């Protein structure tokens, strides 16, 4: 009976281990053979000039208090189950109550200032957010699906503010930025 080609004999395992080791060497950017390694496999996010400029531009002109307040309010209204994380915020009974709640306003600002860290460290968002990720996972116990809900509400609020200036390309850049933030915030969940 012919051996299936999927079966790995001892040689096959050895080959796999070799490929794994080589892969790790490449990731570390080192070369044991002495010739110059001009390309490096990197797991950094790549930003185009347009994307960088767009993110800096949007946030430099943003009223963090107002946008934060409105985005969090919208999230609590549009996705009411997110209120589960704010049991001690008092009156969240309806949209007007949420909008008028000073704890919601204050927390919206906290969230936006947290985002600011990513704006200022676009090339190192994952490391920048390591502690925040642990906080959201182990202390706050926030289901990461909620990050996308808040991000979508933030997108809507910014879209409304910028109007036609929120072009499809600007939208794509903004949403990519938020996706990277969400990924970093989700990284320390185990």
């Amino acid at each position: 009976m012919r051996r299936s080609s999927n079966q790995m004999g001892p040689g096959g395992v050895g080959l796999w281990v070799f490929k794994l080791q080589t892969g790790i060497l490449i990731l570390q950017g080192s070369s044991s053979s002495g010739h110059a390694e001009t390309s490096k496999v990197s797991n950094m996010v790549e930003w185009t000039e347009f994307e960088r400029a767009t993110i800096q531009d949007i946030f430099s002109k943003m009223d963090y208090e107002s946008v934060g307040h409105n985005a969090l309010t919208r999230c609590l209204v549009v996705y009411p189950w997110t209120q589960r994380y704010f049991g001690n915020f008092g009156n969240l009974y309806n949209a007007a109550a949420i909008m008028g709640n000073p704890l919601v306003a204050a927390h919206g600002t906290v969230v936006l200032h947290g985002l600011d860290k990513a704006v200022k460290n676009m090339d190192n968002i994952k490391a920048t957010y390591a502690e925040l990720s642990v906080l959201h996972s182990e202390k706050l116990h926030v289901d990461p699906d909620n990050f996308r809900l808040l991000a979508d509400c933030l997108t809507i609020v910014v879209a409304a503010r910028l109007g036609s200036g929120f072009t499809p390309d600007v939208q794509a850049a903004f949403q990519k930025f938020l996706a990277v933030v969400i990924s970093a915030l989700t990284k320390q969940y185990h």
Partner: protein
Amino acid sequence: MSLTAKDKAVVKAFWGKIGGKADAIGQEALARMFIAYPQTKTYFAHWPDLSPGSESVKKHGKTVIGAITAAVEKMDDLIGGLSSLSDLHAFKLRVDPGNFKILSHNILVALAVNFPGDFTPEVHVSVDKFLAALSAALADKYR
């Protein structure tokens, strides 16, 4: 998450405000989707031009938003009202239903951009629920 009487009233009132701008909203939502979610372009490989201002995007945006506007009057029975469109999407077009959520999001963005004052959180939640119910009705025949 079924549509309450309040949701239906809010959606009807807001859609009335959209009025003649509906076609432009449809076009803009599609354009935004193709740029921000490029994987959605795979369903339109047969179009010569997928850019925002193209005739194809304009025409198809009008088709899609027209069906949504018609659905506003069918909110009491979306599954029944969208039955033939569901047949079309299930058996002919076979669009993965995950994409309905993506297009819905871009419709919301287009609404926020064009109606910033009217697209309040209360309107947003009702319209979001309507689009979700519509998407479910569209996927009804899939399996």
